[in-house]
Every structure is written in C-alpha cells, then in structure tokens.
C-alpha cells in the first residue's frame, strides 16, 4: 500500500514539474550547425489622459470653453487606442431638483460623445453650450451637474 502511495506521489510530482529548457548546443557533429533562439518580451501599454477640470459657467453664456481631453502620453499596442467617452446631462438646481438647465458638450459644431486616441498629444477641445431659451426659463438659484468621462483601452476594428 505504501509503495502504491509513494508511486502515485512520485507521478504527481513529475506531472507538476516543468521541463527545463537548456540552450541548444552546437558542436562539430551538429547538422545543421545553426539554431534559432526566439526572444520574446511583453511591454505593458501605458497611457495618460487628461480631462477638463471643474468649471463654472457664466450666467447667460450660451457657449463656454470647457478645456479639452488630451492623450498626454501613450505606449499602446498596435491596432489599439484609448477611447474616451463623455456623458452630459442637465444642471440641477440645488434647492429644487425639478428645476434643471439642459446643456450640451460640444467640440466645434458637433456634439461630443466619444473619441479614439492613439498618439500622444492628440487633443479634443470642448465647449459647454446652453440655449438662450433655457437660460431665460431657468429659475433663480445654484445649479450643478457632472460630466462623466469613461476611458477604455480597446482594439480598433478594421
């Protein structure tokens, strides 16, 4: 019985061990006298993205600079990019939740939703736009809203 257990344990040890690879030896008897050595390495992707800072919008401003999204530094895999998406909503009156001011996040004339960046230095300037009619209807008070930026490292298809 002991022998059987010792045998099973020995098999388990052998199964779990790895085979050590030794450098290929080439000598005068080797044919051919060359051998390939495959060198592999892996560099982890790194990137730094800056997003706009907190901003206070001037009263009655229909368009105001909101800073920019910028890929400050990047070491990405080929066919990969950093995707930054943003969701804008409404500014909510801090005293009355039902009172809101809708706004849009824009880059140029286009509404900004998301953008892929694959080179360091790429930048997207943003503006916040509030329609004059929405200003005119807004009740008095302090309003606040949050723009959430989601950053993903993703493979670029195609």
């Amino acid at each position, binding site marked *: 019985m002991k022998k059987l257990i010792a045998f099973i344990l020995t098999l388990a040890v052998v199964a779990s*061990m*790895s085979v050590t690879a030794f450098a290929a030896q080439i000598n005068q008897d080797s044919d051919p006298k060359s051998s390939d050595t495959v060198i592999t390495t892996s560099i982890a*992707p790194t990137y730094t993205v800056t*997003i706009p800072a907190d901003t206070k919008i001037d009263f009655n401003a229909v368009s105001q600079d909101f800073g920019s999204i910028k890929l400050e530094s990047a070491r990405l895999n080929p066919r990969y990019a950093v995707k930054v998406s943003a969701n804008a909503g409404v500014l909510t009156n801090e005293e009355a939740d039902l009172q809101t001011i809708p706004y849009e996040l824009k880059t140029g004339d286009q509404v900004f939703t998301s953008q892929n960046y694959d080179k360091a230095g790429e930048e997207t300037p943003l503006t916040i736009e509030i329609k004059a009619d929405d200003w005119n209807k807004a*009740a*008095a008070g*302090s309003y606040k809203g*949050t*723009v959430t930026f*989601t950053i993903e490292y993703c493979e670029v298809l195609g």
Partner: protein
Amino acid sequence: MKRIATALLLICLLSFSAVPCFAAELSEAATSGSSVVSTEVPYSHPISVKVDNASVSFNGSSGDSLNIPRLEEFKLQIKPNDGYMVKQILLNGEDVTENYKDGVLTLSGVYEASDLTVITDKAPVTPASETDKKTDENKSDSKNGTSNSNKTGDTNMKSPQTGEYTNFAFWTALMIASLSTVFIIGVKTKGRKTEE
C-alpha cells in the same frame, strides 16, 4: 536505507523542476473620471431707468437702477411731474405702455438686465388749470411788483364775461310787449282825461 534513497530521489526531481510563471494579464477594464459643471442664476436683475419729467420707483426705492425679482410679476410706480403725462414706456425697446394704468406699470418675466425708458409729454391744458395758471402768474407778478393792469399788449388777456346773452329774442319780445302795454295804458288814460 530505502527511505533515504527515496528522499534523495525526490529532492533531485524537485531541483530539476521549475516554477511556472505566468504573464500578468492586461486589464482592459474602463476607468472613469468626472468634472463638475456649475452655474448661478441670479434672483434679481437690474433695470436701468431712463426718464425725464417723471419719477420711477419700486417698493419705495427709486433711482437710475432698480433691482427687479427674476421671472416674477412686479409693479413700478411711475409718477409724472406736474403738467406732464406718460406718453410711452419701452422695456428693452419693446412698447409696454399698455401695461401702465393709474400710475402703475405691471410687468413680469424679467430674466436679464433690462432698460426701461419712460417718455413723457406735456399734459393738455384744461380751462380750469389755465385759470389756475393765470392766477399763479398774477401771484408771481404781484410778488415781482407788477400787475396785469400795467401790462400792455397782452393779446392773450380776455375781459371777464358779463351779462346774459342767452334767449336774446325772448327778452326783446318781452321788452316790446312791455313798451306796448305802457303805450296802450297811456293812450287810454289820456282818452279818459279828455272825456272828463
């Protein structure tokens, strides 16, 4: 002896074994950040008042600039000076004169700094007020040592109206009838005296 040999054999096996090392998995999980956007909507707005020959006040305060509550109805008291009347009222160039009644301008929905312009005109002169005006002028003249009697060439002066000019025909007919009666009575009286 066998045990020792087995232990040594196992140790030899272990020395040849390598510990597997796996590469770290690249996490592609999304991260997020946020920015706070805020603004302040004022509770009141200044209204710049441009007015001549009148005064504009709100809740007892007056001046060239009045603070008006945002998006609320409010009433401005507009009091023209003596001898003047409000002709037109403009709010940011828009005519709001129709909202002016009995010295009060009622407006609502102001959502920004605004300009209020009140245009006045001389009030039409009524006869009573003209008489009062002349009385005032006479008073001021007497204070200055002059009087109307000394004035000459004042074509605007009118003599006080006297007499009764109504029913002229009636009074004429009555006079004729009276004279006729007197004449008849006189003739009759003279006839009686002659007969006696």
